């Protein structure tokens, strides 16, 4: 009986001494230290911008359509020359994700044709109030952590198949043809 007890204490003490040096520890000092997440981690959503500051999201609502838990709500509006928000004609005026509804499946990320919504590494989802769980557009746009995903500049008039070939086709005198200004 005592021998068994000593055996067990030996295992525990062995582990204790092995990890005392900090090597191989599986726990973290959480609030101060945060765990690194893999690149494909599906954490809190982020909305991406282009380098020139324009929003990628054009408010197509495909994320809302594909969302299995109907957590996404958005209202679109039209860009004006005075207020150019996104790269297309249209932008999301209201973009909300109900994080209590969200199941973090990542469908929205996949459905997005503009690589605008990505799921970042942030897994801190504790809030004080229920209303805080409704992530507003501003919460998602300029969140501090970096998101993932690469995308090209949105231009609907260029086929996305071989963008390089488009640059090479500049010799075409018809290439820049535009209709008359009606």
């Amino acid at each position, binding site marked *: 009986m005592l021998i068994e007890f000593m055996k067990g204490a030996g295992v525990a003490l062995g582990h204790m001494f092995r990890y005392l040096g900090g090597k191989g520890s599986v726990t973290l000092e959480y609030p101060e230290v945060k765990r690194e997440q893999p690149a494909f981690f599906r954490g809190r959503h982020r909305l991406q911008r282009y380098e020139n500051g324009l929003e990628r999201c054009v408010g197509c609502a495909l994320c809302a359509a594909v969302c299995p838990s109907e957590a996404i709500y958005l209202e679109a509006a039209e860009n004006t020359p005075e207020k150019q928000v996104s790269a297309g004609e249209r932008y999301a005026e209201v973009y909300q994700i109900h994080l209590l509804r969200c199941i973090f499946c990542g469908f929205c990320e996949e459905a997005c044709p503009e690589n605008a919504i990505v799921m970042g590494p942030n897994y801190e989802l504790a809030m004080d109030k229920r209303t805080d769980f409704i992530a507003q557009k501003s919460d998602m746009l300029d969140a501090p952590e970096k998101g993932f995903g690469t995308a090209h500049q949105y231009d*609907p008039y260029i*086929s996305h198949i071989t963008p390089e070939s488009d640059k090479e086709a500049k010799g075409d005198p018809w290439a820049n043809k535009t209709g008359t200004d009606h």
Partner: protein
Amino acid sequence: MPDQSNHPALRPGKDEVKFFINGREVVGKKGETIITVAAREGVYVPHYCWHPALSVAGNCRLCLVEIHTPNPKDPTAKPLPAPKPVIGCQTPISPGMHVYTESALTKDCQNGMMEFLLANHPLDCPVCDRGGECMLQRYSMDYGHGHARMVDKKRKFLKPSADPLIDIERNRCIMCTRCVRFNDEVAGDHVMGVFDRGEGNYIGTFGQGPISNIFSGNVIDICPVGCLTSKPFRFKARVWELLQTQSTSIWDASGAKVTHWTRNGKLYRTTPPSRKYHGTYTVNEDTEEFIDNVTRFGSDFSFHEDRWDESRVRVGSTLLPGAYSEALKQAAVGLAKAKLNHGPDALAVVVSPRATMEEGFLAGKFARNVIGTENVDWRLNVSAPDAVHTAITHADGDLEGGFDAVVLINGDFVHTTPTFASRVKEHARIFGRPIIQIGHYHDPYFAQHSKLRFHCAPGETAGALASLAKAVKGDAQAGNLLAKTFNVNAERIEALVAVMKAEHGRALILQNLQDMGGNYLADEVPAAIALKQSLGAAWRYLPVITDRNAFGLPLVGAEPTNKGEGFAAGKLVEQIESGRIRAVLAIGADPLANYPDQPRMLRALDSLEFFVVSDLFASEVTKRAHVFIAAASHLEKSGTYCDVEGNLARINDADPPRGGSRADWETIAGIATLIGSDKFAYKATEEVFREMIKTLAPDFQGSFKGLLLPGPRNDFSIADPGGARNRTPQYNPGDYRVDGAHFRSAGNEVEFAAKTPRAPRSVPAGQYLLAWGRHVQGADYHLDRASIANLLQIPPYVEVNPVDAEKLGAEHLDGGVLTVGEQSYAVEIRVKAGPAPGVIYMPLLAGRVLARYADAPIVSLEVVDSPATTEAAAH
């Protein structure tokens, strides 16, 4: 378009043709095209440019199919492949022909065309408003490549901003020219065309102006791609997010069916009825149910900020918001007290001309059973109530089965009942039926298709109709008189009489009940009915009027039975002033509408002892109420409407009533119950309807559910059965068809003799007689509160005959000043062949511009070159 003779509906002949689709033997009518027969047989042939209501253009080439024709030398041998694939939309079927819609060649053609169409199409589906109901998206899934081979720069056009309602994005256009053909053929307005050439061609409007006709919104629906989209709906929502509610127009008395698209209690758009299509309900781009712009864009008025969605009770001088039940109680108490003090005939119940039949029925029942008076009326807007009553109760015509000839009397039909007018024109145009126009105003909308047009002076129409009746009977003297009245030679009269005399299966006399030329209607209506009666059973009489439920409300007792009483044409004011009426219950009715002396009306309302209003908005009238009851809008209640043809149609609630508002039928029933009646215990409009219909049409077979979408459009079959218009299951799900019962007032066996018409007015030189009519655009104060009301309203304009215009020195779209008595109005002058020489036509815009006159006033018109007026009035 140069050729409109190849309309799909013209195709079917009598003989049966047997041929094969994908190896299956099918039967069609000689002259029918492959695409129509295939669709009827459940074989879908993709198409963009082909539209069942438009002529065949054959330019998208998507309906190319492989055909094999029988060997002429040996019919029993294997059929020979045709040298080329043929287009299904234009190729008539022939006996023994084999059509392959799924062969390798056909698929290759479809595949190739899709690649061509997408070659220059921008990849902006996420931005495009058509996304989700786009035929390009659908077909590229069904028939297209999975990838793009085009690597060159895409074609790009600059974006015009031609139309305030319709957004044109030419980069997305596939040049199917449906919009061009729609405007040419249905809207009768040659305003759109194809410009430039080859790959650079694009659609646009001539003069880069707006598409200014009343049907222009339909190009949004018939555009199969995202080129023409709705500006008011632009980017507001994606179509798959919206909830659809089948309903009917509350503006157009033609009874146009609509679908309201709502989300979260807000109306986003109104379209023609959506149909089941490839498994989902969408606005099919093949829709033939065209609606007018007022219905399309003017149905969202209930979201205006003026809306009072809480009932209010007057305390002292203010109206304090309160509970609905409290308001109802106050109303019941007040009305009961007024009845007790002054007797039942001191009370009046007035309902809106846009009230549902259920509401009209309950209003009548309330007035008679609970109050005990005949003081119930819907005709506050109507200036010639007797004539209108006579006309409505003698109407027996409809468009079912088409017509062989049609006589139009005095009317701006296209602005009174737009959809109805378009159907009349469509039938006449496609089948070459004669349109005869008589009177001092001819609708220019029909001008292209009506050879027989006879102008006469205002007031002479009734006499002319009487003479015509005699002339048709062979009275030569009447013919001469007619020639004199119309100022034409005898041959024209002979031609007219010949058409009237000809053997007709069905012919129609259409009369516009708008107050064209003042009180002449009192003579003209009996004259028109007398003409119909003298012409025999083939002829039917069909009057039209702007008021949506003008044909339904008289049926259900919403006007006094002893005709002549009532509150039409300002009688309400007179009766209040004389002290006969002490209390008024107004159900959505606006006493101010079209009443010339507004301060007098307001004074009269102020003097009322008790005034209950059930309405949507804060207004000069509702502010004077003792009890204001918040009413539910047409999107928040259900009910039945009757259109000018006598078809019933339902409005359906897309949303629950906003705030504390309630439907008007509930309000009437509630007040009645509170006063003490036990006959008003209704739980739903269905119960009201059942009771109502029991008295109306005991043998009515149509189910209540069927009333969702009945109507002339679906039942509009053309004389030849099996016509292309009998849409196939593909386009017309059978579950919508009901046996269309036509509701008409019964017992009209009175022989009408035309009254002796009054002599025409003599007009001093340089002056004109004014004729007017109410446009559907100017119908109502509710419309003013639609989100884009400013775009729907038409500018004050007058129409002048070219003869007069030349005398005046006026040109089309000049500015002018119209002087009526003491008052002057800045107007836009439009030179049109509509009004007779010596007549100026002006639309009456809900009392905004011109007050109502008892008789056609004599006016003068002065031309001013004021670019400001012209510019402001540009659309």
